[in-house]
Structure formats: structure tokens, C-alpha cells
């Protein structure tokens, strides 16, 4: 037995209401528990004390006067009179109110018939007293003809039932936009599910969205009830923290809809989320497309990443860039650990800024062919041409220069190439480089080349390709043809 139970048993035993069995159990417990045994003794003493204790009699004098002190008389049942008076007043009030209301209803009917003056009176009454019976207007869809007036009436004062009335108007009226707006203004929390539901309809989308932007935190719980396509659209159009976090979670778990929605958000925060998505191979393509949509925010972010020497940012710069990107990449060339990536990225920008960088890069074997091909296709032609000609004349890198020049169609280059062509081992590659030059300019050079025993064969092949004539290696025939032809 536990001590708590023993306490109850002791009380019962004092009342002589404990059964024999329980009494035996209690005795057993008392033998084993000193505390309870002492308690039992105290309780017994206490019980004896109850009968001994005296509370003091106030004396005979007091008792004699006791009954005289109060005179029994029926207390004035004031509450009965009060109740009766209240009832009477209520009945009278109802009677007069009824008279007033009858007058009121005449005005209501006038207002429903689009009487401007009556409407003005009702609005004034509602504003000052708030006693207009609004349900009268809502009954049997009476409001349909004067919906704007009824809306104005309902929103004049915030009453306990104004929300329900407005809801009724929204459900059955025509001015749904206005009703929705006022529903929101009356009680944001209660109207949230209704507003979220309105997102499903294209007509209400913009209004509902602008309302939801005000309390995105509460609204985003209801998004799950929306159609999936609409949900992603909404999340893309919102600008708050909660929707962004929702998109982030979905995007990182590989949801492509979420990535597309992020692309619509036009903020650098969304760009950051998309940038983290770049680490996942499966969604990289979608993330890049979304980042494209996010320009210029994504470009700013990429510049930031390039400055932080982030390889992903450097790679992305070839796809998403603006006029400043080349400059940012160039800045980084001096202190980057991803030099080859930067060079690759820079090679995509055919701007005059890069020319110096690539010219300086030519002596390095690793980057030479890349640098030369960039230089050959760059737009800053006079400077680059001079550089290329110098390379052809003095350098010992004819081979690589010639390969790069293959892309350059500047006529200034013809003469240096022809000069190189006479050098041993370079005839074939040099004549191939000439292929892309303007026909009119190179044919005389090729005809002259026919005199050289080394160049004769390749020159005749190219002449045949260019002119579709077959005079073989005979120089005179070609000269005659040249004179006759209109070229």
C-alpha cells in the first residue's frame, strides 16, 4: 500500500467506515511505515480535539438581542418591477421603431430604385448612426441594380456581420473586384482563402495578387489548395521572403517549375538561389535559362562571383554577360586561380579591350592558338592585322599564324601570306589561307605563283576551285583567261 492511499484509509477509519479487509491492510502498512504510524496517532488525537475545542459563546445578552436585530419583512422585490418596466419599455420601443422602420423601408425602396437622394440619406444615416438595415438590401438579390451603392453602405462601418454581407455580395454580385477588395480591407485573415481562390481566375489574378503581397506570410499556407500551374505563377509573381523560401526549397529539390518561377522574380535574391542550383547537373540547363530571364540581376551576381573567383560564375559569364563582363574578367586575370577558364571566357568576347591581353598571351604556347584565333576574328582589324603581318614576317610561328589567319578575310593580309607561301613547307597551308580572301584580289597572286615550281600545283588546284576553269599549271592560259574575264 502506498502512503497516499493509507491517508484516505485513515480518514475512513476515523469515520468507522473502513471495511475489515482494508483495515487489516492499513494496520499492516502502519506497522511498516513510521511516518504513517505517527500520522495515524496525530489524526486520532486531532479527532478527539475537535470535540473539545470551543469557539466561545457570545453570551445570553447577545442571543436575546439576536432576533430583534433584524426585522423580517419581504424585501422589496425591485427586480420584478425593473423587469416589468424593461419589458414595457421594450414593447413601446419596438412599437415606435416599427413606425420608424416603416418610414425607413420606404427610403430603402427608393434607394433600390436608384434614387440618388435616398441613397445619400441612407449613407448619411449609416455614417452617423449605423442603424440602416443592411440585410434588407441583400435579401432576394435586390442589390444587383445598385450594387456600388450597397457596397459603399456595407463598407461605411465595420460591423460584426459586414464581412458576411460582403461575402454574400462577392458570391452573387457583379462588382466582384470591388467586393473582393473590400472583403480584404474588412478582415484580412478571414478573406485570405477567398482571395487565394480568386487567383485561379485570370480576371481577378492581378487584384488578388496585389492583395496577397500585403500579407504573404499568412497567404502562403493556402497556396497548396491552388491549381499547380497557378501556384507556380503566383510564386513567380510574388516578391516576399516566404514565397522565395518556398521556391528555393522546391528548386533545390529539382523542381523545374520552381526554377522557371524564380526566373520571373527579377531580384538578386532569386538569382542567388538559381546560382546555387547550378551545382546540380540535372537542373543546370533550366537554371541558366532562368538566369537569362533574370538579367540584369543575374549579370550583377555573375560579376560578383567572378570577382570572388568562382569558377561557375566565370563559366556562366560566356552565356550571360553585358558590356562590363569582359572588363570584370580582365580585372581578374592578374589574380585568379582559374586563369584558363577566364581565358576561355574572354575568348568569347570579340571586343577591342581584349586585344592587348591576347597579344600578350601569344608567346605562351598553351594559349597561343586560342589567342591567335581570337585575334584573327576580332573587330579591331588594323591593329590586329599589323600584329599578324609582323608575326608572319618576322616570327618563326608561320604555321600557327597561318592557321589563325584562315579566319581573317582582310585583303591587307594577302601579300604577307603570299610571301610566306614561297617558304619551304608552308606552301600548302598558305595557299589554303588564301582561299577565304576576296577572289578578285588573290587570283593575280595565284597566277604569279604558277611560275614557282614548288607552288605551281597547289596554286592551280586553288585556281580551279575558285574559278571552275581548268587550265592546269599553264601560266599563259591563265593570264589570257584573266584578261578576257570580267573579274
Amino acid at each position, binding site marked *: 500500500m502506498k502512503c497516499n492511499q493509507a*491517508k*484516505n484509509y*485513515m*480518514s*475512513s477509519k*476515523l*469515520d468507522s467506515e473502513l471495511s475489515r479487509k482494508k483495515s487489516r491492510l492499513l494496520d499492516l502498512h502502519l506497522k511498516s511505515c513510521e511516518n504513517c504510524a505517527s*500520522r495515524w496517532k*496525530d*489524526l486520532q488525537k*486531532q*479527532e478527539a*480535539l*475537535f470535540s*473539545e*475545542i*470551543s*469557539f*466561545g*459563546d*457570545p*453570551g445570553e445578552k*447577545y*442571543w436575546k438581542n*439576536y*432576533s430583534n*436585530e*433584524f426585522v*423580517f419583512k*419581504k*424585501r422589496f422585490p425591485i427586480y420584478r418591477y425593473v423587469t416589468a418596466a424593461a419589458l414595457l419599455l421594450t414593447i413601446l420601443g419596438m412599437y415606435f421603431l416599427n413606425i420608424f422602420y416603416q418610414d425607413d423601408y420606404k427610403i430603402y425602396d427608393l434607394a433600390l430604385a436608384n434614387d440618388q437622394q435616398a441613397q445619400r440619406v441612407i449613407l448619411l444615416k449609416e455614417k452617423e448612426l449605423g442603424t440602416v438595415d443592411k440585410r434588407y438590401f441583400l435579401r432576394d438579390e435586390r442589390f444587383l441594380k445598385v450594387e456600388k451603392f450597397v457596397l459603399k453602405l456595407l463598407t461605411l462601418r465595420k460591423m460584426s456581420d459586414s464581412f458576411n454581407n460582403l461575402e454574400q455580395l462577392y458570391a452573387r454580385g457583379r462588382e466582384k473586384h470591388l467586393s473582393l477588395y473590400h472583403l480584404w480591407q474588412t478582415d484580412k485573415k478571414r478573406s485570405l482563402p477567398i482571395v487565394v481562390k480568386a487567383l485561379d481566375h485570370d480576371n481577378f489574378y492581378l487584384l488578388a495578387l496585389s492583395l496577397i503581397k500585403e500579407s504573404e506570410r499568412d497567404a502562403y499556407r493556402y497556396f497548396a489548395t491552388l491549381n499547380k500551374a497557378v501556384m507556380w505563377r503566383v510564386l513567380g509573381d510574388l516578391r516576399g521572403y516566404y514565397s522565395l523560401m518556398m521556391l528555393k526549397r522546391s528548386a533545390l529539390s529539382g523542381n523545374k517549375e520552381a526554377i522557371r518561377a524564380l526566373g520571373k522574380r527579377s531580384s538578386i535574391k532569386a538569382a542567388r538561389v538559381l546560382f546555387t542550383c547550378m551545382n546540380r547537373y540535372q537542373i543546370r540547363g533550366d537554371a541558366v535559362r532562368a538566369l537569362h530571364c533574370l538579367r540584369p540581376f543575374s549579370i550583377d551576381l555573375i560579376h560578383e562571383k567572378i570577382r570572388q573567383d568562382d569558377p561557375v560564375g566565370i563559366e556562366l559569364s560566356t552565356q550571360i554577360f553585358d558590356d562590363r563582363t569582359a572588363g570584370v574578367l580582365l580585372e581578374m586575370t592578374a589574380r585568379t586561380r582559374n586563369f584558363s577558364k577566364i581565358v576561355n571566357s574572354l575568348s568569347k568576347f570579340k571586343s577591342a579591350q581584349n586585344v592587348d591581353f591576347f597579344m600578350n598571351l601569344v608567346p605562351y604556347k598553351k594559349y597561343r592558338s586560342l589567342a591567335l584565333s581570337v585575334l584573327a576574328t576580332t573587330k579591331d582589324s588594323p591593329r590586329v592585322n599589323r600584329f599578324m603581318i609582323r608575326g608572319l614576317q618576322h616570327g618563326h610561328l608561320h604555321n600557327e599564324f597561318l592557321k589563325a589567319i584562315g579566319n581573317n578575310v582582310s585583303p591587307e593580309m594577302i601579300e604577307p601570306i603570299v610571301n610566306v607561301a614561297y617558304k619551304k613547307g608552308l606552301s600548302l597551308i598558305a595557299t589554303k589561307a588564301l582561299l577565304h580572301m576576296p577572289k578578285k584580289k588573290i587570283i593575280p597572286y595565284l597566277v604569279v605563283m604558277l611560275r614557282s615550281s614548288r607552288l605551281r600545283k597547289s596554286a592551280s588546284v586553288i585556281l580551279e576551285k575558285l574559278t571552275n576553269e581548268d587550265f592546269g599549271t599553264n601560266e599563259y592560259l591563265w593570264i589570257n583567261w584573266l584578261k578576257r574575264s570580267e573579274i
Partner: protein
Amino acid sequence: MARMNDTQLILQFKQGNTRVFNAIVERHKKRIYFFALKLSQDHQKAEDISQETFLRAYNKLHTLKEESSFVPWLYRIASNYYRSIIRRPMLKVVSDVDLNSLAIDRQEEDDNEMEKAMKCAIAQLPKKQKVALVLRCFEGLSYKEISQIMGISNSAAKAHVSYARNKLRDLMERTNDEM
């Protein structure tokens, strides 16, 4: 009138003879006064409770259906009123009566230490337990009557008394230790 029992007196009262109520008061005034005194341990309050009890009884006696349960009904009124006044802070009324002349004060001096400790401990009990204990141990009512008076079940009444007895013992022990 003195020969009539409570039931007869009440029946007469219900028939319109309101004077018989004085006889009822005479018969039960001490019982209710001392009950109130044990609960409140204050003469002023006991007087207030007992008088209010009889006033309420006078006004509501016509609603009493079982005349035989008049005494528990009186106890119920008294205990309810007691519980209602200790719920709110009492306004101190300066009475014209010279309280020093009352025998209660003189006798208090004679109270032995044990009784003092007991009264002090009773005053500290929670109000429901206090009412149950007083009704059981001082007034000697059965648990059925206590449950009627307090508007609780029989077992709840037993539990209240048991808790009160044990708590009283603990409080007494603490007081003895302090002394």
C-alpha cells in the same frame, strides 16, 4: 409553537403565517452562528453570515420543496454565503457594538496552545475542505448531507474531508515544530 417541529413550522409559514419564522430562527440561530464562526473564526463575520442566512431563508423558504431537509438547506445557504464573502475583500464595518464586551474575547485568553494552533490551522485550509471538515467533524453531519449541502458527490465529500484532516495534521505539526 415550541412544540411544533420544523416541517410543521415551515408549512405554516408557507400558508402565510410569517411570524413562525421567529421560532425557526430561535431554534437554529446558535447552530448557524457557530457553524459560521468555525468557518470564519471571526465574530463579526459569523454574525453577518448567520443573519444573512436567515434573511435569505426567509425570502426563499416558499421555494423549499422538501421541508425535512431544512437544516442542510440552511447550512448550504450559510456555506455559500461564506464562500461568496471570502471571494471578495470585505469592507471593514465599524460597528457600534462594543466587541470587547463580548464573552468570546475573554474566553480566547483561556484557550490553550493546542486549541489556538488548531484554529489557526483550520483558518489556513482551502475553503471547500474547510466547509467539509467543519460539517463532518464539528457539526457531525453524514457524508450524504455534506454532499447535498456542498452540491458535490458523496465520494468527493469524503475526499475533501480526508484531505482536510491530513492537511490539518500537517499544518499542526508544522506549527508545533515552529513553537
